[in-house]
């Protein structure tokens, strides 16, 4: 690659620019080119201004002052990638708006309908997931409480519930049921935890898709030089 330098200096600069380009993957090609050209210019000007010592130590000093490629590109990475690191509760309404903004417009009215359908479907899935989790917790705790009460007053709720004797000793039998009930509650909590993980995953996938769509839309018009 021609970067205006020669010899080992050119190699060092090339290596730096290659690492820079690697970090720029995923942003539009035109923006990549511009930033690489701009940094090349910076390196050139900085190298020209620094006249102390041999060329290699000059270029190393120049790149050291410029900083690692990560410093040059941090905020240029797609906004979503930057915010992904932060924990942010994204209300589903905003998600829906973004979905329509990015999918609805390029796909036309049909796409808008599909996007809305997708959101409603997802919402229903999420709601039913949490309903199941909460009913498991509720069932588990209530059963456990009933069973504990039955240890102290064995006749409690006898007219309404019929408890199948797993073992002959009634107290031990009750303890088995309490443990079972607590396990059900634990399963509910497990689902809640899984839910939060799943939501994070779903959010990540959506953000990723939006970025792809946005880049595609930016690239769509013929680039003008």
């Amino acid at each position, binding site marked *: 690659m021609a970067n205006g330098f020669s010899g080992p200096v050119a190699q060092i600069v090339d290596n730096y620019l290659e690492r820079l380009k690697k970090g720029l993957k995923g942003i539009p090609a035109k923006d990549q080119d511009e*930033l690489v*050209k*701009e940094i090349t210019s910076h390196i050139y*000007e900085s190298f020209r201004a620094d006249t102390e010592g041999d060329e290699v130590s000059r270029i190393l000093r120049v790149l050291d002052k*410029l900083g690692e490629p990560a410093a040059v590109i941090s*905020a240029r990475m797609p906004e979503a990638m930057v915010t992904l690191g932060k924990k942010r509760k994204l209300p589903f309404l905003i998600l829906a708006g973004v979905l329509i903004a990015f999918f609805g417009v390029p796909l036309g009215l049909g796409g808008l309908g599909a996007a809305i359908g997708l959101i409603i479907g997802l919402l229903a899935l999420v709601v039913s997931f949490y309903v199941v989790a909460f009913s498991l917790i509720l069932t588990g705790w209530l059963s456990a409480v009933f069973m504990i009460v039955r240890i102290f007053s064995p006749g409690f709720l006898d007219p309404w519930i019929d408890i199948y004797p797993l073992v002959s000793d009634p107290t031990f039998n009750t303890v088995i049921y309490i443990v079972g009930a607590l396990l059900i509650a634990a399963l509910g909590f497990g689902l809640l935890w899984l839910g939060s993980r799943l939501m994070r995953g779903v959010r990540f996938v959506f953000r990723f898709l939006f970025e792809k769509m946005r880049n595609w839309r930016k690239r769509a018009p013929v680039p003008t030089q």
Partner: protein
Amino acid sequence: MENKITQLRKGILELAILGALSHGRHYGYSLVRTIAGGSDIDLTEGTIYPILGRLAKEGLVQSEWVESSQGPPRKYYTLTLKGERTFRVLEGEFRKLAAIVSNAQKGTAPDDRGEHLNVLDVAKESKNG
């Protein structure tokens, strides 16, 4: 702590960049030299590019490629009208904030030595910070 320094720097650097551009157009390297003021201030030069990119996206600066008499073309940045307005507002705000900080440094602890005060509760140090 590192994070706080980064945040503070970004904000101040943004203001400094707008300020330098309010006196005329600059390319990246000349901007760095202007801001550092000739001295060797510990400034990672590359950090100005993400900031310039963001300012361009916000419509506060605009850029154009200009042929250089020597070496590769330079990308010059100028303030837009919106950028000039924003700079004036931010600079005024910065002066107020700088006054607050210097006032705070001159400040003294409240004079309550005469009163007899018991410590009620010591706040625990937060883990996430």
